[in-house]
């Protein structure tokens, strides 16, 4: 009853001076909003760090497995490995100059021997060529949206030989409609699912590529190869006007121990080819790992620095909030000296008077806390980006993410934006802290109030 009475009087007293209460609550609200936004910002950054670290670890594991699985493979390409392409903002995706080599090198490579041993088990040629038509795409980034142009699709000509199809992963595996290409298929194509609307064609429909008709035999789904058309290599050479040309080779060595030597021989024989062996891929992976680790550790030290700054800012905000309550309550005690006298004359103890003012301070703190949470829930991202040092986490990892994403999409997600959000725990913590701050800020004024002599107080005008 007593506490309830004190609470209801505190509320009445606060609402009695509406403008003052409003100003105090706004001032307090801002201090508390700053208090709550910074931890929210740091939490968001840490979360984002953790997500990226986890994704990265997964990516490395997957890549390692992939590399191990294809230990005997040497990739030879007329263009740099897609995985190592650098991201060029505003440019063409895959719009590098395409070059091609004669398919005669297939046999030359097949006959390489190392120390008198036939080292090559199989050579599989590919012809990859971007379509001449371009499409425009709008990409949304944290810095705004922009339009990029890219080829409408890529033609991949594969060697449709039964033994090769059966033993090597040259065709997509995830067929969602129709059938995969098989030996000797000519005049048939396999298209990625996102090309169906572009061609306006489905399984069994005819599609025209560079003026030549093809029948869609199957549709496949692949994140790493969006907008791709598979066809027989001889068809590809014909429609692209690149008779006898190829752009990529998969060279399988007969024994893993020979891979490096064979790769060296190929590099020496064909300097125009980009050759990557098991070792190169491992080295690349290691480089990536190092770069990534470096970026992460930079980001971590950024976060640590941010936390130090944040602690200082929070201390200032807490002090400001407590001071606001302190001065408001001190003024209130002065203003209500007579009331204190009355309360004492009718039998309120010192403790009753003190708790009356402390409850009032606590209530101001709590209302300020609610205002702070409301302001914070809207302005937390702004406050945290304004008050915390820029973490550069996204920018730092974007560059690294790109190649991973291209080669192993979905492993590193696209959700690496920090979302600064107030969690229920943080809100509860803030409200408690605000109430405690209010109580602390009003401690001295309340104590002073309790010590006022009733006679002096009653005489006060």
């Amino acid at each position, binding site marked *: 009853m007593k506490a309830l*009475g004190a609470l209801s009087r505190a509320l009445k007293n606060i609402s009695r001076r509406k403008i003052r209460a409003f100003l105090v609550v706004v001032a307090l609200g801002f201090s508390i909003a700053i208090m709550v936004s910074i931890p929210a910002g740091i939490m968001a950054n840490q979360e984002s760090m953790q997500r990226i670290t986890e994704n990265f670890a997964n990516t490395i594991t997957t890549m390692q497995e992939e590399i191990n699985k294809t230990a005997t493979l040497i990739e030879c390409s007329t263009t740099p490995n897609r995985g190592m392409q650098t991201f060029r903002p505003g440019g063409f995706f895959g719009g590098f100059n395409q070059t091609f080599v004669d398919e005669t090198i297939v046999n030359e490579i097949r006959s390489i021997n190392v120390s008198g041993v036939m080292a090559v088990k199989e050579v599989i040629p590919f012809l990859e060529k971007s379509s001449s038509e371009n499409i425009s795409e709008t990409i949304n980034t944290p810095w705004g949206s922009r339009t990029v142009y890219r080829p409408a699709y890529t033609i991949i000509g594969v060697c449709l030989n039964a033994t090769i199809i059966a033993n090597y992963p040259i065709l997509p595996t995830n067929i969602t409609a129709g059938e995969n290409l098989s030996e000797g298929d000519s005049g048939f194509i396999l298209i990625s699912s996102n090309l169906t609307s572009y061609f306006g064609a489905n399984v069994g429909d005819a599609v025209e590529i560079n003026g030549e008709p093809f029948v869609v035999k199957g549709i496949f789904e692949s994140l790493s190869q969006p907008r791709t058309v598979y066809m027989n290599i001889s068809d590809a050479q014909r429609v692209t006007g690149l008779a006898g040309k190829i752009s990529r080779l998969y060279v399988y060595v007969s024994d893993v121990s020979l891979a490096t030597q064979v790769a060296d021989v190929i590099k020496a024989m064909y300097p125009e080819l980009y050759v990557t062996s098991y070792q190169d891929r491992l080295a690349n992976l290691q480089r990536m790992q190092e770069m990534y680790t470096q970026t992460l550790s930079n980001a971590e030290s950024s976060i640590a620095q941010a936390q130090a700054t944040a602690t200082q800012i929070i201390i200032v905000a807490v002090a400001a909030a407590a001071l606001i309550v302190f001065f408001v309550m001190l003024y209130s005690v002065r203003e209500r000296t007579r*009331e204190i006298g009355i309360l004492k004359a009718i039998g309120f103890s010192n403790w009753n008077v003190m708790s009356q003012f402390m409850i009032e301070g606590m209530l101001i703190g709590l209302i300020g806390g609610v205002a702070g949470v409301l302001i914070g829930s809207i302005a937390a991202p702004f406050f945290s980006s304004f008050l915390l040092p820029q973490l550069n986490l996204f920018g730092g990892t974007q560059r690294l993410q790109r190649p991973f994403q291209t080669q192993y999409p979905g492993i590193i997600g696209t959700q690496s934006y920090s979302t600064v959000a107030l969690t229920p725990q943080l809100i509860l913590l803030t409200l408690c802290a605000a109430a405690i701050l209010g109580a602390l800020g009003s401690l001295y004024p309340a104590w002073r109030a309790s010590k006022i002599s*009733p006679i002096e107080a009653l005489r006060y005008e």
Partner: protein
Amino acid sequence: MSELVLETEKLDKIYKLGGRTIRALSDINLKVEKGDFVSIMGPSGSGKTTLLNVLGCLDRPTSGKVILDGVDVTVLPEKELYKIRRYKVGFIFQTFNLLPYLSALENVELPMEGTGKSKREIRERARELLKLVGLAEREDHKPLRLSAGEQQRVAIARALANNPSIVLADEPTGNLDAKTKYEIVRLLGKLNAEHGTTIVMVTHDGAIASHARRVLFLRDGKLLEKEKMGLLAKEKLVCPACGREVQADHAFCPHCGRKL
């Protein structure tokens, strides 16, 4: 009337003000019995308010004793005094001293807070008291929306909240117009006569003071030996029309208005 509610023995109060010693109260020996209505009259500066503050445990005497309901309150520690003020004493002030942001009802409820009564009991008691002082209809009004007389009635109801042993009234009519002040002092007289409320009132107004049972005089901090009988103590008539008791000096019955 036999039981002593309040007794003082050789009460002195000395102030030191800028090197000067002021003897506000000097050798006050006062006895107030249960059901008495004492007015203490004196000019301003005679020590009336100081005496009332000392009697009501708002201030401590320099020497002497204040015995309230058989307990010497001058030896009680500070932290015990609030209980005396809460349960034994009811204060009525010249300036009413109501909390402006509380309604009449809430002002009356205030001293009952924390006495262990339930909210409902407190509300019922406060309503009963407001009815007693004739303000049942105005319980929701804040002090600023009440007339001065009504505010003082609320203050009287508040003073009675915890059924105190004694009500101390400090110039209760000092801020009221001529008509209202008699209403208030009559209300105090009624409380004393009908409910047995023990009252000590200080005033500089002789006409008001005379409404009590006893009138004492204070001059320069000293209680004079002379004592007058107040109107309340005088013989009473019975109104032939309504049959109720009327003061002997009344020309008209205050209850039914008949000429006496």
